[in-house]
C-alpha cells in the first residue's frame, strides 16, 4: 500500500512537469520575447552556453545521486529483497568517490566559470570580440542610461539626442553603455539581449552588447526600487544601421530639450508611463556626469512622502505622482515609429 502511494505521487509529479512544460512553451518560444533561453546577441548567447555546459556537467553527479537514493530506498525496504547488514557503515572507497568526483567536477566547473565570467564581463566582455571584428570594427555607439523613480532616460552623447522610456539601437554595431541612477539602485536588463548590471546612484557602471537581428525586445529593471518598480517596462527596438540614422535625424527635429532643470522635473516620482516615450533633440552635454556629482553632493532632493500604506490607494498615487501619464511631451509620443518592419 505504501509503495502505491509513492508511485502515485511520482506519477502525479511527472504529469505536473509535463503540463508545466507545455504551459511554459505555449506558442513558439523564439517569438516569445520572454524566454531567456533564446538569446539574440553574443553576450546573452554566451550565458546560455555556460548554462547548458553547467547543467550537463552537474548531471554527472545529480543523476547518480538521485538514482542511488531512489534505488536504495526501494531495494532496502523492510521486508524487501535487500540483504540487511548493519555493520556496513564505513567504506574508504565510497568516501574517496563521493568526495573526489564532486571535487573534480568543481575543478572543471571552475574553469568554465572563469571563462564565462570573462566572456560576459560587463565592463569588457570577450564574447563580443569576434562579432565586433566581423562587423568591421565600427566605432561603438555610446549610450548613457539613467534610471529615475520610475522612468528611463537613454542619452546618445555623440548624437546629442535622448529618448525616454524606449531604447533604439542599430544592429551590427557594438554598443557601450554607462549606467547610473538618480535615486535608488535599479538593475538594467534586456531579456535575450543584454545581461544584468546594477545601476547605482552616485556611481557609474558599464555594460556592452551587440545586436545581431532586428527586432523588438523587452527591457526592465530587476532590482526592486519602490512602488513604481513593476511598471518600469520599456521596449528596445533594434533596427538596421540605415534606419537608425534616419531615426537619429528625426529625433534631432523633435524640438524637445533635456537640460538639467528639465531632468530634475523628469526625475520626480512617476509611475507607469504606459509605453509612452519622448524624444529629445537637445541634451545638456554633461548631464550624466552632472547627475553623478549632484547625487554624491546630496543635491538630488527626491524625497518620498511618508505614508502608511494601508490607505495608500492608487487614487492617492494619481494625485501625488500622476499615475499613468509620464510627464512626457505629447509631441514626443507622436514621433515616428523608428521602424515598422523589424520583426524577424
Amino acid at each position, binding site marked *: 500500500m505504501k509503495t502505491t502511494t509513492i508511485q502515485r505521487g511520482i506519477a502525479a509529479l511527472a504529469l505536473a512537469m509535463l503540463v508545466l512544460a507545455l504551459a511554459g512553451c505555449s506558442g513558439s518560444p523564439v517569438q516569445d520575447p520572454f524566454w531567456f533561453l533564446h538569446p539574440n546577441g553574443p553576450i546573452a548567447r554566451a550565458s546560455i552556453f555556460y548554462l547548458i555546459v*553547467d*547543467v550537463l556537467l552537474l548531471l554527472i553527479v545529480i543523476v547518480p*545521486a538521485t538514482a542511488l537514493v531512489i534505488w536504495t530506498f526501494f531495494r532496502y525496504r523492510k521486508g524487501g529483497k535487500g540483504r540487511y547488514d548493519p555493520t*556496513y557503515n564505513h567504506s574508504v572507497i565510497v568516501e574517496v568517490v563521493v568526495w573526489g568526483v564532486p571535487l573534480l567536477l568543481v575543478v572543471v566547473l571552475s574553469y568554465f566559470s572563469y571563462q564565462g565570467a570573462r566572456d560576459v564581463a560587463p565592463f569588457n566582455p570577450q564574447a563580443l570580440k569576434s562579432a565586433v571584428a566581423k562587423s568591421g570594427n565600427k566605432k561603438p555607439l555610446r549610450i548613457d542610461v539613467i534610471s529615475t523613480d520610475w522612468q528611463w532616460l537613454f542619452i546618445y552623447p555623440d548624437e546629442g539626442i535622448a529618448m525616454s522610456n524606449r531604447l533604439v539601437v542599430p544592429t551590427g554595431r557594438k554598443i557601450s553603455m554607462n549606467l547610473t541612477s538618480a535615486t535608488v539602485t535599479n538593475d538594467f536588463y534586456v531579456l535575450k539581449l543584454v545581461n544584468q548590471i546594477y545601476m547605482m546612484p552616485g556611481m557609474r557602471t558599464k555594460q556592452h552588447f551587440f545586436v545581431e537581428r532586428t527586432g523588438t525586445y523587452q527591457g526592465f529593471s530587476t532590482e526592486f526600487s519602490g512602488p513604481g518598480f*513593476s511598471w518600469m517596462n520599456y521596449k528596445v527596438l533594434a533596427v538596421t544601421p540605415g534606419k537608425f540614422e534616419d531615426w537619429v535625424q528625426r529625433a534631432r527635429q523633435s524640438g524637445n530639450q533635456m537640460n538639467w532643470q528639465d531632468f530634475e522635473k523628469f526625475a520626480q516620482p512617476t509611475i507607469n508611463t504606459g509605453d509612452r516615450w519622448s524624444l529629445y533633440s537637445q541634451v545638456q552635454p554633461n548631464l550624466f556626469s552632472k547627475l553623478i556629482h549632484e547625487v554624491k553632493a546630496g543635491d538630488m532632493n527626491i524625497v*518620498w512622502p511618508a505614508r502608511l500604506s494601508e490607505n495608500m490607494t492608487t487614487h492617492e498615487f494619481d494625485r501625488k505622482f500622476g499615475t499613468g501619464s509620464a510627464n512626457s511631451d505629447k509631441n514626443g509620443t507622436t514621433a515616428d515609429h523608428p521602424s515598422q518592419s523589424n520583426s524577424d
Partner: protein
Amino acid sequence: MFMNLQGPWDPLFGRLPMLLDLQYNNPWIMFAFALVVLGGGTVVAALTYYKLWGWLWRDWLTTVDHKKIGIMYIIIGLVMLFRGFFEAAMIRTHQAMAVGPDSPGILGAAHGYLTPFHISEIFTVHGTLMILLAVTPILVGFMNLIVPLQIGARDMAYPFLNAVGLWLTAMAAGLCMVSLFVGSFSHAGWVGLTPLTELDHSPGVGVDYWIWILQISSIASTVGAVNLIATMLKMRAPGMSLMRMPIFSWTAMGTNIIALTSFPLLTVAIALLTLDRYVGTHFFTADGGGNFMMYTNLFWLWGHPEVYFVVLPAFGFISEIIPTFSEKPLFNHTSMIFATMMIAGVSWLVWLHHFFIMGSGPQVNTFFSIATMLVGIPTGVKVFNWAFTMFRGRVRLETPMLWALGSVLLLIGGGMTGMMLAIPAINYVSHNSVFVVAHFHNMFLIIAFAIFGAVTYWWPKAFGFYLDEKLGKIFFWLFWGGSVFVFVPMYALGFLGMTRRLDYIAHPSWWPLLMLEVVGIALYAASVAAFVLQVYVSIRDREKNRVRTSDAWETSRSLEWATHCPPPFYNFGATPIVHSNDEWAWRREHRLTTLKPENYSDTHMPKNTAVPIVLGFFVGLFSIAAVWRVWWVMGLCVIGMIATLIFRAFQKDVDYVIPADEMEAMEREKLDQIDHRAQDSAQQTGEMGEPEIDGHAHG
C-alpha cells in the same frame, strides 16, 4: 528630534500622532486584526477560565529548563510560520490576479487587490519573519530541546542566558505582530535594499520596525549561540569525546559557530543603518560620502552564513532520522562531521554571489563563484552518505522518514539550481528573477521538510505520545504537492524572465503558470489544515498513543532516547556514561537498556527566574518606543534594563540541589510507570515488547 522627519513629532508621543492620519479601512488589515484578536482572546480567556495563569507563570514564563524553552521557541516559530503562510497566499493570489493591463483591481488597487506599498510590505515581512522569526526559532528550539539530551547533560551551560534569548526572540515576534496594525512595515525587501531603506526613500516607520526586529533577534541568536557552544564543549557526558558527539549536535555546533561569528556583523550593519536613520549619519547613503554597497556586503557577510545557519540543523535532523528508520548507523560518520564543518567554514567565503552583477571584474566574481561551488561538495557528500545509510538497511517508511526522504530529494534539486546560480555568466541572466526565489524556497523547503520530520520524530520524546501517522502522511503528501505546484512553475517563470517582487504582471502569457502556483497554495492550505488536525487528534487520543519505553521508535540510536518520554526536568536520573558513537544503539546491543542507574547522586539545578521575561519586556517596550521615536520611554527602558541586570547580579540564590534520595524516589515512580505500561502491552500482544537488536539479521 535629530532628523528632519516628515509628519508630526512631539516630545511626549514621538511620531505616534501619525497614526491619527491612518484609516483602518483596509479589509485585509481588519481581517488579520480580527484573527489575531480572536486567537489571542481565546487563549487569554481559556487561561483565565481554567485558572492557568499561575501555572503558566511558574512553569513556563519564568522557566530556565532548556526543554521548555525549546518548546516555547518552536511554538513561536510555528505561529509565525502560520502567519507567513498567509502572506505567501496573498502574494500568490494577488499576482495571479494582477496580470495584464486589463486585469481588474479592487480595494483601491489598480490591479489585483493590493496596492503597491501594501504588497511590498507583505513580501518584506514574509521574508523577514519566515527566516528570522519562523525557521530560526524552530531550529534554535530543537537545538535547545535535543542537544543537552543528546550529550547527556542535566542542563545547559547558561540557562539564564538561554531564557533571555527566548524572550528577546518573543519580543521580536511581538514587534512583528504589532507592526501589522500599528503603522506600517518596511517595503524594501527582507534584505533591506539600501539606499531604499534610508530616510529619504522610506520616511515612514516601516523600516524602523524591520530594523528593530532584526536587531533584537540578532542579539538573541548571538547569546543563544554562546550558550549552546559552551554547553557542547563543557557539558558532554563522561565518555563522549567530541567525535562521539551525535551528528545532530555536531550540526548544532557548526550552526552556532556560524551564528556566533556572523550575527554580530548583522548587529553592526543594522546599527549603522539605525544611526543613518535616527541621527543623520551617512554610512549607507548615496550622498555625503556614504557607501551603500558596504551595507550590501555587510548584510550578505551575515546573510549567506545565515542560510547555512538554517540548513545545517536540518541536515542534522535528516542525519538522525535516516539511520533510525534504516536500522543502521549513519554511513561514514566522521566524513559527515567533516562535511558539516566544511560547509560552516566555506559559508564565510561566498557572500559576493548575491551581487555578482554589481560590476566587479571577472577575477573577483570567479573567486566567489568557485568558493560557492565548493559548498556543493560536502552537500553532495551528505546526500551520498544518506543513500549509503539506507544501503543494506531495513528501511521503514514511518512519517519522519517520509519527510527526511522528501528533504533529500529536494536537496538534489536545490543544490543543482544553486550550482547554476553560482556561475557568474548564468547569474547575469537569472539574478533577481523568480528563478532565484524558487532556488532559495527549494532550499528552505528542505528545512521545512526536515523540521516537520523532526517534529514527528521527537514529539514522542518531548510529550510521551505519538503524532497520528495517518494524518501525518496526508499532511506530507499535501505539503509535497503544494511544493511541486508552487515551485516548479516558479522555476519555469524564472526562465521566462519574470522578475521577483512584482506588484503587477505586465505579460499575460505568464498567467497559466501563475494559476498553477495558486493551485499549489491551495494544496498548502489543505496541508496546514491537515497538520492542525493531526496535532489535535493526537492530543485527543494521547492515551491510546502513549510511548511504552524510552525509545519511541525502537531503533533510535542516540542518547536522548536513554531517558523517559517526556524527560524529567533533570533530564537523566544519573549522568550517563558513554561508550560509543551511537550510545543508545550500543546499549541496546549489549542489553543495557534499563533506565535504572547503579546509584543516584545529588544534582545541581538552576532556579526559575522572572528576570529574563522582565528584561524582555523592557526590550520590547524600548523597541516600540524606538520605532515611534519616543525618546523618554526609550531612556526609561534602558534604565529598566540596567536595573534588572544589576538586580540579577546581586541575586545569590539562583540554584538548588536535588538530594540523591529525592531523585531516587522521583525516578522510581517513573520506572514503575514504565513497567506497568510494558506489562499492559505484554498482556495485549502476548509478548514483552522487547525492542529488536541491531545486527540480528532476519534474512
